[in-house]
């Protein structure tokens, strides 16, 4: 049955429409997250959303989960505290390319390294939307931004490569256009024990488009659609041919031990080693 699942999850006390611009991909990604949570049958009470600061990080205010809209860049750090303190909870982090990879880059790699059971969805629009369109660490070379008036000269991170090198169990990329694939990857990520990173290429038709004359809503979506190739396809292409492409698919799917689980084992050992301290 076709269902508009998201409506079962919108906060009853929150006004709509939301704050995002017309054609912004953030709403699409949020609804994919909600569908993924829904399809796993997770309880609303025990699924916590955590975000930082950015247009994308506004997402948790709209959906009816316990949610922490933290400080810029620290979403994964807040989330680590939540998950450690109560490992029963399902913790989903919503972050941007700025929030998660610029100021938050350290927490990103350390969360991956610890492989703590959190799923982080990176709303990657290759720009700082919230602050007016500055270049982000995922912006392509030669794109423009408020602080890249001569074209960006910094090479972008490949979010998936970084996450894999840092140790995350599950790493995948999808786009806002490929909403069904996106939902599937998020679902796999949440289901996976350990840290999951889902890098989502999403359009900012307001600021990215303003600085890059990238057209309006549909133009940006079409560009994303047309530039997307699969990992399999990418392997057949030369670096030059891949230049402008968005490579989607699953980059890592492995089973390193999960952090809170190992910690629980440690607690067992520690409890056993409680000595009778009272001697006198």
């Amino acid at each position, binding site marked *: 049955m076709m269902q508009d699942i998201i409506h079962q999850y919108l906060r009853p006390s929150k006004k709509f429409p939301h704050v995002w611009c017309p054609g912004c991909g953030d709403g699409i990604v949020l609804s994919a997250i909600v569908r993924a949570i829904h399809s796993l049958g997770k309880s609303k009470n025990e699924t916590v959303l955590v975000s930082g600061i950015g247009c994308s990080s506004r997402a948790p205010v709209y959906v009816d989960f316990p949610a*922490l809209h933290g400080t810029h860049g620290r979403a994964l750090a807040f989330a680590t*505290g939540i998950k450690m*303190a109560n490992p*029963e909870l399902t913790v989903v982090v919503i972050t941007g390319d700025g929030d998660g990879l610029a100021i938050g880059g350290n*927490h990103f790699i350390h969360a991956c390294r610890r492989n703590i059971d959190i799923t982080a969805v990176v709303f990657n629009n290759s720009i700082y939307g919230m602050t007016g369109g500055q270049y982000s660490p995922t912006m392509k070379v030669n794109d423009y931004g408020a602080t890249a008036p001569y074209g960006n000269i910094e090479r972008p991170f490949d979010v998936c490569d970084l996450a894999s090198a840092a140790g995350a169990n599950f790493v995948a990329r999808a786009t806002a256009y490929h909403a069904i694939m996106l939902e599937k990857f998020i679902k796999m990520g949440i289901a996976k024990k350990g840290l999951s990173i889902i890098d989502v290429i999403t359009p900012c038709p307001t600021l990215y488009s303003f600085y890059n004359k990238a057209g309006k809503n549909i133009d940006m979506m079409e560009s994303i659609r047309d530039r997307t190739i699969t990992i399999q396809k990418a392997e057949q292409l030369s670096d030059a041919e891949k230049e402008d492409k968005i490579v989607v698919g699953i980059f890592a799917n492995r089973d390193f031990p999960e952090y809170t689980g190992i910690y629980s084992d440690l607690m067992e050992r520690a409890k056993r080693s409680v000595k009778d301290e*009272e001697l*006198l």
Partner: protein
Amino acid sequence: MLFYKLYKDEQGRKVGFLQGNEACLEAALIAGLKFFAGYPITPSSEIAAVAAEKLPMYGGRFIQMEDELSSMAAIVGASMTGKKTMTATSGPGFSLKQENLGYACLNEVPCVIVNVQRGGPSTGLPTQVSQGDVMQAKWGSHGDHPIIALSPSSVQEVVELTIQAFNFAEQYRNPVVLLMDETVAHMREKIVFPLAEETEIINRHHSEVDPQKYKPFDTSFGDIPPFENFGSEYRYFITGLIHDEYGYPTTKPLEVKNLLDRIHRKINDHTQQLSLFEQYQTEDAETLIISYGSPVRSCLGAMEAGRKKGMKIGVLQLKTIWPFNPEIFTKLPSKIKNIYVVELNMGQLILEIERVIKRKVNIQGINKYDGLFISDQEILKYLEQQQGKKS
């Protein structure tokens, strides 16, 4: 690997010969600590080491985060699940925690932040004593934010005030800073841990309202809104943006003002309850020495030695630094002609004291900031010099 042992005394109380840092974590366990996140820094590191060993023994969890920013974030996140949480650091790390400390203040998240003060500014004197972060404890984060800060002068007081810190945090839904100093943190003294029945442990106040009606910043119960755990049937949203009673961002001027007023009022209206201090021989004193933290010890020594010489010295020890309680100072016996404020910094809390004492009295700072502890002799010598009594 613990470097201390605990024994039981005749009354069944745990006793030990512990460092301030070790005592701090043991006391935190008594207070109900369940989660510690930290990043090592001298002279606070032993707190984390003890936490790493002891917490998992008693069902708590420890994590060493990648830095202080994330440590602070982690204890705030963990506190949202209803756990009592703590971090420990020193000056440089305290500076790094400020942004997220402000977040905790705005969202009224109970948690305890230990700052074992060492010589500053910057990397400063990592292994030496200081009280250089007193003003930072109040003003370190941007924007007006309410803070509670306590400062112990002995290892036994570390126990007392650590438990108090957790209690205040829970009771007032506010972060509490435990301002230790290197001397108190690293010295070993005999301490006696209180029995369960001797210890009041306060837990955050929960709501009884229908989950549908719950507002995380509900003001209808007074200035301290009831708290509900993430993971419970109460679902809500918190943000570092100024928010309404639902926790949703607002820019409505009245809502903004109401929120800021309330979170400050909830502390300021309870200044008397929060204000812990001790007076020693102030009844007949003409000279008052005011201090806090480890220098109080030397002040008491100077008082004793001075009194032997006929000087009418009294000592006022502040255990609560913030909120600052003007009443203590406006109500001082009028016999007091000279006030000396002893601080291991260049003069910080004296600024507040000067501000609130309106009557004509000589107020002077005795300040040491060369990395060494101040001795009773030094204080006494200064007093004698000042009073022209040097014989």
